[in-house]
């Protein structure tokens, strides 16, 4: 029951769609960020992904690694913020791991979502349960792993990962913030999703939406 692997052009389309989804969620993300931060997370990511979009469209991508490296470089340059630096590091690391890889099967997709979570955990020093982007990343990775282990193809792995990320982000609403400024104002943040976690849920949902039309309907 495995779906067709993702080629470079499908991956490019998925990343572009993910950027579009983040741009569409800009105001919602800013509003969530304003509860505990300075309220610019949506603007920062939307601006960063505008540059990602422009770069991906012209990037002569021979391999999947190049697309992720380009995504990371553009975010590093154009999304200066904690979330921007964390995501840039994660994408650069995924890019390194996918160097020379031309197709992504379900296991590869699960692995890259795991790499994202590992990178953010190491760089950000957070653990799951601390109301950060990592809560969505870990949940997305776990859901993707389960799907891939059951033999799902990449489109289905992404869809399951998106559902997992959404659940992980939703769970942050009940968590006590530990990191960053959010740690100072626990009461205000309670009941609202963490903006970074929500952003990852939006991003992975966009990836899944970007490949769905080309996915194997049998999966």
């Amino acid at each position: 029951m495995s779906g067709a692997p993702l080629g470079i052009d499908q991956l490019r389309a998925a990343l572009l769609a993910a950027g579009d989804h983040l741009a569409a969620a800009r105001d919602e993300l800013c509003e969530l960020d304003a509860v505990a931060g300075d309220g610019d997370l949506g603007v920062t990511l939307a601006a960063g992904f505008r540059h990602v979009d422009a770069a991906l469209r012209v990037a002569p991508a021979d391999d999947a690694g190049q697309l992720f490296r380009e995504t990371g470089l553009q975010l590093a340059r154009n999304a200066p913020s904690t979330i921007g630096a964390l995501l840039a590091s994660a994408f650069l690391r995924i890019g390194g791991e996918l160097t020379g890889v031309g197709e992504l099967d379900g296991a590869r997709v699960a692995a890259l979502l795991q790499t994202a979570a590992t990178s953010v955990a190491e760089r950000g020093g957070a653990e799951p349960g601390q109301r950060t982007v990592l809560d969505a990343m870990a949940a997305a990775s776990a859901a993707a792993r389960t799907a891939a282990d059951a033999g799902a193809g990449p489109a289905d792995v992404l869809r399951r990962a998106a559902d997992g990320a959404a659940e992980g982000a939703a769970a942050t609403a009940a968590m006590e913030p530990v990191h960053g400024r959010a740690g100072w104002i626990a009461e205000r943040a309670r009941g609202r999703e963490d903006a970074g976690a929500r952003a990852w849920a939006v991003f992975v949902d966009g990836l899944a939406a970007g490949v769905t039309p080309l996915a194997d309907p049998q999966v």
Partner: protein
Amino acid sequence: MTETTGATAPMRKFINDPEAFVDELVEGLVLAHPQRLRRLADEPRGVVRADGDFAGRVAIATGGGSGHLPLFVGYVGRGLADGCSVGNLFASPSSDQMLGVTQAIDGGEGVLYLYGNYGGDRLNFDLAADLAAAEGIRVATVRAADDVASAPPERASSRRGVAGIYFGYRIAGACAATGADLDTVAATAGRALERTRSMGVAVSSCILPTVGRPNFEVPAGEMEIGMGLHGEPGVRRGPLLGADDVGAELAGRILDDFAFDGPQEVAVLVNGLGATPAEELLLIYRSVHAVLAAAGHRVHRVLVGEYATSLEMAGASVSILQLDDELRGLLDADADPPITMAG
């Protein structure tokens, strides 16, 4: 007549547009020291050594938030750091700035990132290292985590970096000047900072020009032992004590943390946080000296002055470096003074 409250009282500061404060101070710095410092053409908050003497040896990059002069940019100089990324007040510079500085100072032997252990700085320097690696520049990292007040010994790697980073600049700069390779410079600077402990005390707060009121309050007549450079909570607050007691407490807490098994040879740095005069720092050193002498430690070198400040915060910190033969030799090497003491 209504009484003016502290929150709305005008700042007693010489500033222009608060948002321009950092750019203007960097401009003033390079105008004042054109032989020593220059700004990068495409990165005005990237400052490197004006003599451009980076070829054939490991270069040292630093950076961090503004508001701590001479830390960080004031340690760009001979025998110290080669380049610095200047952040906003108390805020990390961006990875892009750091990459620009890295490219400007890399002489082909790699670049050591030497900075204080704060979350934002770590994130951006790590990302800058990724970006540099993608361009074929080798980077190693050493973080100052010398503030014993900021975490217990079992979590020493999570401690904040404070004035003790000065010893890191001296050791790294001297080691790089010997032509040692990147791994050696990083290991040597790392060893020096692992053998450095600091403890501070604050008696008043500071005002960020962009904020316009004190960041926090220390009530008159009180002091906070262990307060961080940005007003992070310390280990105890109590009545303001005399210089003898303050020096003894700071030195005592550092020595407790070291837990030496016998007399050592040390270097000592007594640092003013911005508004405490040199006279008072000398009184504190006098007390620290007595504590060290009583324990049988030999003081090889003493530095008293402003090395890591927090704008106009009143307070002081003590840093102690446990020397060995190699570190003593490197610390004795000639180096430029901190830029605020340079003529």
